């Protein structure tokens, strides 16, 4: 547990000093939100129908830039080789990265929320507090899988291109659940509970699989 904490504090400190990940994600997500707003000029009921999807897709695209950076940092100065030799399990390293990236993406979502409400003239008709459940669950699904696949593609050519190509297809079921749940909350037309359960199930299954397989990836030779 203390190893996890050490890794986490290190990642948070690096981000606090550079603010690379959060700034780039924030600006990218803002661009996506503005571009969609320009393309559809959303108002009223139509706005409520599409905004769930736009929010999720904006988060998804933006987080890729941060996830690519997550392991690239470790490659410089052969840090990753040192991690491989360290007598600790890779699972702790992995979980620390996931928690750090989860915090970054959540901060971006919090900062983006007011802008989003203004641009999309959003008036939430369902139970708004459920968003506090849906967004973290969806973000976790994205970040856990994304961190794992970023580690998986680290040794390949064009790794920055490869990450979205292998992450998005696997993430689609979670995206579907996230979009449907947020749309249900915004419009208030249907009950989002079942989608939230699906999202939670997805999180549990894939996080477990990632933790179990991470050592295989880290030591792949």
């Amino acid at each position, binding site marked *: 547990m203390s190893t996890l904490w050490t890794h986490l504090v290190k990642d948070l400190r690096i981000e606090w000093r550079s603010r690379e990940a959060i700034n780039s994600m924030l600006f990218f997500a803002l661009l996506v939100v503005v571009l969609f707003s320009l393309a559809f000029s959303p108002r009223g009921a139509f706005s409520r129908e599409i905004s769930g999807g736009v929010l999720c897709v904006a988060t998804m695209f933006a987080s890729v830039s941060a996830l690519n950076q997550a392991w690239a940092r470790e490659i410089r100065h052969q840090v990753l080789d040192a991690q491989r030799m360290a007598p600790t399990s890779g699972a702790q390293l992995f979980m620390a990265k996931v928690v750090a990236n989860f915090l970054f993406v959540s901060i971006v979502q919090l900062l983006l929320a007011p802008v989003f409400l203004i641009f999309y003239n959003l008036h939430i008709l369902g139970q708004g507090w459920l968003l506090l459940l849906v967004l973290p669950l969806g973000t976790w699904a994205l970040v856990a899988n994304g961190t794992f696949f970023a580690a*998986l593609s680290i040794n390949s050519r064009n790794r920055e291109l*490869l990450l979205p190509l292998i992450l998005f*297809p696997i993430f689609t079921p979670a995206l579907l659940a996230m979009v449907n749940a947020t749309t249900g909350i915004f419009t208030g037309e249907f009950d989002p509970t079942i989608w939230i359960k699906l999202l939670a199930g997805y999180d549990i299954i894939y996080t477990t699989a990632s933790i179990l397989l991470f050592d295989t990836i880290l030591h792949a030779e």
Partner: protein
Amino acid sequence: MRKILFGLFAVFNAALAVWCFHLANNAPAEMMQGDEYRIIFYHVPSASVAFLFFAISMAGSIGYLTLHRKNPTLALAWDGWAVSGAEVGIVFCTVVLVTGPLWGYRAWGIWWTWDPRLTTTLLLWLIYVSYLLLRRFASGAQMQTSSAVLGIFGGIAVPIVYISNRLPGQHPGPVFGGGEGSGMAPVILRPFLWNMFAWMCWGLMVLIVRHQLELRQQKAVAREAERALNA
């Protein structure tokens, strides 16, 4: 001996193709759809073959990961099944995705709808294409490990995708709920089952050829590496 057996299997497949084409053409026209229903003789079997081969691919990935430290040679054979299953599965899946809309346009008046089965098939196709992309991009022995892991992740996605598409929500219900499975007249069922068998045999033949090819390629790569070491 193996070559003779495989040759016999190929001849058997050719005979089966002729016989099943005859059966499919001479089955009586369906009551509601007329001749259009004949797509069932290759569309549905192709889907079954694709799903079966994706399962083989996942099994190959698991086999590779469990064996690659203990028995590298055997593990490579499993990796061969993983890549052959994914590749041939994608081909059959593409056949399903291309022929489906052709029929859908005639029967429903639209090319595509986000019906559970359509969505599931498309997502699976995307996942396995990404698997092949990873194999193309990554290199060396790491490639086999990484792609085996992705193969397992893809396999886990299959039931999740399937369940998520069954849930109610803003999407309309499936366009055809009961479908063919809800009943088939014996005069159509018999040629259908024959075609199912024939497509399975054909798929198996392609899969075996692809697997042999992969094994030879692995050997060639190993020889090349050895020559480079000795040079």
